[in-house]
């Protein structure tokens, strides 16, 4: 409701982020008070969801120990995994529900906070209609909670509008895979990667965003494999690449159409596979005809010889894999980018075999599982379409309502914020989402938040977005509720409840059930445990593409994970999809889908001549709500820096360490330059994990892919000017440290 209750400084002072450097009790405490148990569970940061053992004493996570038996990561961890335990006992942790008051937030009782929340939601729905309330969820939630959120929106609130922060992640890939294969999952287990003779890494900063995957790629190289990397930046894995294709931001599609052009021109396609297993080839062949290497080079800045070589390497190998991530997905043509890669795999027959295929490297912790069971605006559990009458009937039966009572598809994440901005949506209930940092065009997001008549947040820390809330319900960390996740490779894993939520914080699932009661829908949410939610999820997903029916917590433990689909208790799970040559489409064919070139939504011009691309660093996770509170991770990379090539830097008389103001068509921010030869000279890069004056997303724009509704984080236009000195935030920060 309008602006935060007190100044931002006051809120930051009270609720952080304060970096925690030392475990509870100090570094030496463990030798005097050793852990009383080690719990095998998973990391919460990123879609790889590495196995990890948390050290626990009493109700406190106090450290970690690698879990070397878990087959995916075999003890390996990135720095986020190593330090994740420092969330345990963190001083910023919300220990009570908070209500907004004239002097800031005040701790409230659960009854008061829940009654207030449900009452406001009812009032607004009665006044403006059911769809005036929207919900945001997050893909870092365990699947039980994702399922619960989807059901809560449709059954307890009866609103069409629920979407999740996975919309900002890999939905372009999901949409493309559904179009091509009829199912949204990486078709191969990661154990296939070392078996590939060629690995094409397309727009994926594997070293920083999926560090464990590096080990798989190195094993492929040790066996003689070739590595091709496509990225406007020379990311760390480029040092070991056989071929680097530093593509101009926003032109990936031209490159992949060009690769297919060369494949077809030189007769390298797999005719037998195309004829037997696919449809739509001729349209795709026609669509790439104009994309000869010379044309591609002009568009992408990648030399024609590199285009030729990449196409030949990829097509001529018996086993090639294309791994892709946000670099191709975060575009207003993100779906086309993914489709073009899939088309390349289909034309060369690299799919459904050991060591061959395409795979999306899903980004969020439970990015895969969190999108399968109903918190997407257009989906019901089991990856069912909300517009499919059969799916509605099945889900309605499991939920105990009529199919007509299930609302139709609603707005996607950015569209919800736009609807709030124009006054159509009046109230928002958000969990596990920090849109002020993660949505594009942050100033627009801020204006929208100020317009809400009611804003409820469920979170464990006070995120920057939560400053705008009327009520903040103190929820739970990943290790505080039992459940499942699904990793980037489609492996369903068991997340243990390691400790209870501290203080008066509560499990998120309890919060939703209590709200449902107060909204008069308690009978649909009778759960005492998350296991009961999971058992219902299994039924709800049964018969869908993402069929979890045969996966139980116990079966996961016995097998170190089970790959879906797994339709019966006897079924061993499905590590690799399409092995019988059939897709999940009713016709069983893989569908080639033709792609068409178009420009990005925020083109460079004389006034904004530089490409801006945004991304991540290894020490931070998403909007930083968690990782900006962990001291070692903060120190590793404290503030966003502007990566800029010396050639471009020289033009603006910018030296390494200088302050530079970056201006886009929406806003400007001032950051310190990091002059490096590892980025294209026409492009600058800023990581996005920070809020306010340091927020890269104040510069980005709201153009969406028309099908996936993903924003175009990977390409905006900007200009640069050297700043006279450090901005206010940097001066303050230095004073604070002094």
């Amino acid at each position, binding site marked *: 409701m309008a602006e935060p209750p007190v100044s931002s400084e006051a809120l930051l002072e009270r609720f952080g982020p304060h970096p925690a450097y*030392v475990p509870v009790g100090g*570094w*030496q405490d*463990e*030798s005097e008070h050793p852990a009383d148990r080690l719990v095998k569970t998973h990391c919460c940061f990123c879609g790889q969801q590495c196995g990890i053992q948390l050290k626990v004493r009493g109700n406190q996570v106090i*450290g*970690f120990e*690698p879990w*070397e038996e878990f087959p995916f*990561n075999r*003890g*390996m*961890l*990135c*720095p986020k*995994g*190593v*330090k994740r335990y420092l969330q345990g006992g963190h001083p910023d942790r919300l220990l009570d529900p908070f209500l907004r008051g004239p002097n800031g937030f005040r701790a409230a009782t659960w009854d008061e906070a829940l009654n207030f929340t449900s009452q406001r939601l009812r009032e607004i729905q009665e006044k403006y209609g059911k769809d005036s309330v929207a919900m945001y969820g997050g893909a870092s939630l365990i699947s039980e909670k994702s399922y619960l959120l989807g059901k809560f929106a449709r059954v307890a609130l009866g609103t069409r509008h629920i979407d999740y922060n996975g919309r900002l992640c890999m939905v372009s890939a999901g949409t493309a895979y559904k179009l091509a294969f009829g199912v949204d999952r990486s078709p191969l287990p990661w154990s296939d990667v070392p078996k590939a003779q060629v690995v094409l890494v397309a727009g994926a900063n594997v*070293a*920083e965003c999926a*560090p*464990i995957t*590096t*080990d798989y790629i*190195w094993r492929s*190289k*040790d*066996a003689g494999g070739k590595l091709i990397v496509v990225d406007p930046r*020379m*990311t*760390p*894995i*480029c*040092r*070991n690449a056989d071929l680097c294709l530093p593509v101009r931001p926003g032109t990936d599609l031209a490159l992949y159409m060009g690769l297919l052009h060369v494949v077809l021109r030189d007769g390298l396609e797999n005719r037998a596979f195309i004829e037997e297993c696919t449809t739509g080839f001729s349209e795709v062949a026609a669509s790439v005809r104009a994309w000869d290497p010379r044309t591609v080079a002009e568009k992408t800045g990648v030399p024609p010889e590199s285009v030729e070589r990449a196409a030949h390497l990829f097509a001529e190998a018996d086993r090639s894999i294309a791994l892709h991530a946000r670099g191709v997905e975060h575009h207003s043509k993100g779906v086309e980018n993914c489709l073009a890669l899939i088309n390349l795999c289909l034309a060369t027959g690299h799919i459904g075999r050991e060591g061959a295929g395409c795979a999306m490297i899903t980004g969020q912790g439970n990015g895969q599982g969190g999108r399968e069971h109903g918190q997407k605006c257009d989906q019901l559990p089991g990856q069912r379409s909300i517009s499919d009458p059969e799916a509605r009937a099945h889900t309605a039966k499991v939920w105990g309502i009529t199919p007509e009572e299930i609302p139709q598809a609603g707005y996607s994440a950015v569209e919800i914020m736009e609807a709030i901005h124009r006054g159509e949506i009046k109230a928002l209930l958000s969990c596990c989402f920090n849109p002020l940092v993660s949505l594009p065009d942050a100033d627009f997001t801020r204006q929208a938040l100020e317009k809400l008549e009611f804003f409820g947040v469920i979170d464990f820390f006070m995120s920057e977005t939560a400053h705008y809330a009327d009520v903040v319900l103190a929820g739970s960390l990943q290790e505080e509720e039992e459940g499942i996740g699904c990793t980037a490779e489609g492996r369903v894993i068991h997340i243990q409840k390691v400790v209870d939520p501290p203080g008066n914080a509560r499990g998120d699932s309890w919060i939703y059930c209590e709200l449902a009661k107060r909204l008069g829908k308690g009978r649909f949410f009778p759960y005492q445990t998350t296991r009961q939610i999971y058992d219902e999820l299994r039924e709800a997903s049964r018969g869908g593409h993402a069929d979890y029916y045969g996966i139980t917590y116990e079966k996961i433990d016995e097998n170190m994970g089970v790959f879906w689909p797994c339709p019966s208790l006897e079924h061993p799970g499905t590590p690799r999809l399409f092995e019988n040559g059939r897709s999940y489409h009713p016709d069983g064919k893989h569908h080639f889908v033709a792609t068409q070139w178009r420009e990005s939504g925020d083109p460079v011009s004389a006034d904004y001549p530089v490409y801006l691309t945004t991304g991540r660093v*290894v*020490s931070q996770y998403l909007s930083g709500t968690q990782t900006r509170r962990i001291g*070692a991770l903060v120190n*590793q990379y404290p503030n966003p820096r502007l990566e800029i090539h*010396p050639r471009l830097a020289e033009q603006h008389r910018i030296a*390494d360490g200088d302050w530079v103001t970056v201006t886009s068509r929406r806003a400007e921010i001032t950051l310190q330059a*990091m*002059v*490096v*030869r*590892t980025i294209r000279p026409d492009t600058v890069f800023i990581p996005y994990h920070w809020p306010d004056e340091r927020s890269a997303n104040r510069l980005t724009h709201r153009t969406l892919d028309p099908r996936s509704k993903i924003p175009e984080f990977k390409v905006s236009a900007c200009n640069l000017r050297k700043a006279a000195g450090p901005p206010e935030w940097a001066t303050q920060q230095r004073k604070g440290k002094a």
Partner: protein
Amino acid sequence: MNGYEFYVDPSRCIGCQSCLNACEECETHRGQSMINFDFIDRKGTTASAAFVCWHCEDPTCAMVCPADAIKKGEDGIVQSSLKPRCIGCSNCVLACPFGIPKIFPEREQMMKCDMCYDRTSIGKRPMCATVCPSQALSYVRPEQMAERREKPTNVFYFGKQRIVTKVRMMVPVSTDSVSLDVLDHIWEESHAVLPQA
């Protein structure tokens, strides 16, 4: 751990600093990381390197220690200085050709990587090599390293000083030792490179 050796491969380092962060979690020196980590030349490249102590056969640090505080165990591991003996003089810090030992002023003691004695002695791998996601630090059996495209060496030249280490460095197949002497890269033949007096 019997039969296991430590290998360092900077060409596989991705700069994530997992090792640096994990080292700090080891029980014997919790809160202090013993990993040496650097971006080599971030302006020009993403190349980075993470090093543990190389555990020399004939450790320079021990040779130069005036207090006889640095000991090598029978297992070949060069330990941190003995607390009662260490005088914090920094001789070892200055002398180690790899730049490994560090003085911790609050402890008045030199501490360095001891190859996670607390872990390896009970059958666990060192923390850094366990968590490293990119095979830059490995603690494995030699057979496993034979699958790599590089090969190990443990002979280093620093000028005239020849050092043989317990920890091995992965180098290109055509290389037998690692030399950090410019002379090895200069064409000299019969011409002296020193200015003639």
